[in-house]
């Protein structure tokens, strides 16, 4: 048949667009291969490993106490939560019970860190949707929390503050006033973000009913955290397991309805307010006493294995540790919620446009340090 026959409709071809690892909105070094039909996305393949540092292996070649600074580098915008997850796992392995004061301090810093992480999420979502200004505002307010962390442990991003058995040092003087001042400001700046973004018609049409994830799909992809809660599953490890001081606090688990980008944004938006609530309760009910349990200088856990989970900012953060009775773990595996959430990228982006794919990346809130580990 003649190829140039007029009756034959012109054929279109799909093509592969390689986004990343250098791309303005891949949150670091995520590489995504998009199969495109014009602007329409047919398939998305996230390709990982550009930030692989072998943290699991590094943990295996060090003593338990030496391991915790490495966990800072996993999810580097919420390091406190990673410290918490690791220390919680080691404590469960060794049967160490942190004192109540330590648990309260941990809850405060972890929730404050959750607030900053969600702020980064709101900022980068706005940035990826083209509203650069949103990013500047959230980063401005995040700075206040970073100052508090600076006061607590001297670091602004990688803290290594939560240690096995408690926290590195007691909260300093002036901490409480500073935190309370920040908490009073939370409704104020959340109102500001809402003014800037929530009521914006463009922001609404870009997010609502876009990249919908059903409850079943999200569960099948093993998503956890805000991404799962946005689909309507009220699963929060803080509530389910009730570890640390969390059972003593009164807080809600915000859930979405449709599992679209808007719900993923709204769930995190509300979580900031819930976290602020937790911090306030923890400050009010702060018990006196030690901030560190009696932990032997050389930690030799008994032979055995443990899987322990905490609620990281991006979902269920799990540490699986196998101990052979020596000072170093035999095997460490980290269940990184960002990494697992990346599985949801393809079902989310399929059928959308390039712009939707970018919004979907941002709404999953992946952090490459955690994805690649």
């Amino acid at each position, binding site marked *: 048949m003649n190829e140039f026959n007029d009756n034959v409709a012109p054929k279109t071809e799909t*093509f592969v667009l390689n986004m990343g690892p250098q791309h*303005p909105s891949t949150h670091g070094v995520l590489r995504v291969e998009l199969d495109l039909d014009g602007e329409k996305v047919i398939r998305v393949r996230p390709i990982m490993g550009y930030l692989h540092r072998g943290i699991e292996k590094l943990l295996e070649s060090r003593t338990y106490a030496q391991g915790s600074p490495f966990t800072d580098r996993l999810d580097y915008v919420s390091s406190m939560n990673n410290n918490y997850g690791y220390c919680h796992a080691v404590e469960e392995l060794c049967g160490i019970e942190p004192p109540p004061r330590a648990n309260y301090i941990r809850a405060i810093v972890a929730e404050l860190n959750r607030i900053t992480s969600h702020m980064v999420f709101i900022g980068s979502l706005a940035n990826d*949707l*083209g509203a*650069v200004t*949103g990013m500047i505002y959230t980063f401005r307010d995040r700075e206040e929390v970073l100052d508090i962390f600076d006061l607590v442990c001297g670091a602004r991003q990688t803290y290594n503050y939560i240690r096995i058995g408690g926290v590195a040092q007691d909260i300093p003087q002036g901490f409480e006033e500073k935190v309370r001042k920040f908490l009073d400001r939370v409704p104020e700046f959340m109102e500001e973000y809402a003014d800037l973004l929530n009521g914006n018609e*463009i922001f609404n*049409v*870009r997010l609502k009913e876009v990249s919908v994830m059903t409850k079943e799909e999200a569960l099948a992809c093993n998503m956890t955290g805000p991404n799962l809660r946005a689909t309507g599953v009220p699963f929060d490890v803080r509530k389910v397991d009730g570890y640390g001081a969390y059972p003593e606090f009164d807080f809600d688990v915000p859930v979405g309805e449709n599992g679209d980008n808007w719900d993923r944004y709204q769930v995190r938006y509300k979580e900031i307010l819930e976290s602020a609530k937790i911090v306030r309760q923890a400050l009010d009910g702060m018990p006196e006493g030690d901030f560190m349990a009696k932990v032997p200088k050389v930690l030799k856990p008994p032979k055995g294995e443990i899987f322990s989970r905490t609620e990281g900012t991006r979902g269920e953060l799990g540490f699986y540790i196998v101990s052979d009775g020596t000072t170093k773990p035999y095997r460490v595996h980290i269940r990184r919620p960002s990494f697992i959430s990346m599985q949801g990228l393809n079902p989310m982006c399929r059928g959308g446009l*390039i712009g939707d794919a970018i919004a979907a990346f941002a709404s999953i809130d992946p952090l490459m340090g955690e994805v690649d580990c």
Partner: protein
Amino acid sequence: MDNGIVMTVANLIRDILMLVLGNEFIVSLIMKFIGIGALLGAISGAAIAFTYTERKVCAFVQVRLGPNRVGPMGLLQPIADMLKLMTKEDIIPNGVDRVVWALAPILLFVPSALAYAFFPFDDGAIFADVNVGIFLLIAISSQSVLTFLMGGYASNSKYGMIGAMRAVATSLAYEAPMVFSLLGIVMLTGSLRMSDIVTVQGDNVWFIVLQPIAFLIYITTCMAETNRTPFDFVECESEIVAGAFTEYSGMRWALFFLAEYANLLSISVLTTTFFLGGWTGPVLPGFVWFWIKTLLMLFVFLWFRWTFPRVRIDQMMSFCWKVLLPLALVNVLLTGVGIYIYRWM
């Protein structure tokens, strides 16, 4: 005051030249060149000044300080930037269609600069006051799409290709409502001549009062024409890196950049001319009024740029075709009915 400052100055120069040379033809020729020079100077000067303005306005919106290191209040920053861009290595990527690729940024400047010939800066100060002013202006300014297509297509880059495709697709969508929104003005004025449009507004009332719908449609489509957020599909940094300009660097990229600012000034001037009464205004000389209004519009456009997120391309297309175009047509109908009633009364 019959003539504005600009014409007074121009007549003065003309008189001096006549005294020195004495030949009318040569003097006219020289005057044309002076006019062209003044316009090109205005374009490039404004474009460079606007990079500073944009950064300062952006900083103001984003609670920052903006450039404040180079020169007093950072005023020399654009000059430092231009020097840096000029000294950068000229990188030509492998596999580009060299001629088309190199021509694109240069040709982009042609429609941007040509449009300035039709701007009434002051009473009588219009380089080419032709009787089909608006028509020619729209025809010329829509040519810039071709250069985006050239640049994106010749870049041999997928991002560039997507950017070029988007430029063509969106230009079809926004040009139609834009033209129809201006039709109301032409109906009211009864002329396509730019100076007539301003004079009519000066004698009666600004068209923003008579044509509020057209004004909104026009500024919306203008933002699409200058490729700025919320309609910056050609560049679209967070999606397709830099779209049609992805493979350009150094001075070539700066040309795209300058053309963008030249276009930004264009749309501010045009909005002023079409809807805000151009140079007309009480007390102050026309030239001053013209710039006050233009800079005000410029601020409005910058303000949009730094507060709005980007719409998705299909949303923008359906918005243009399904909302703006019918609205513009309704506006034309209403204007027609209005004129009929006005005459009947």
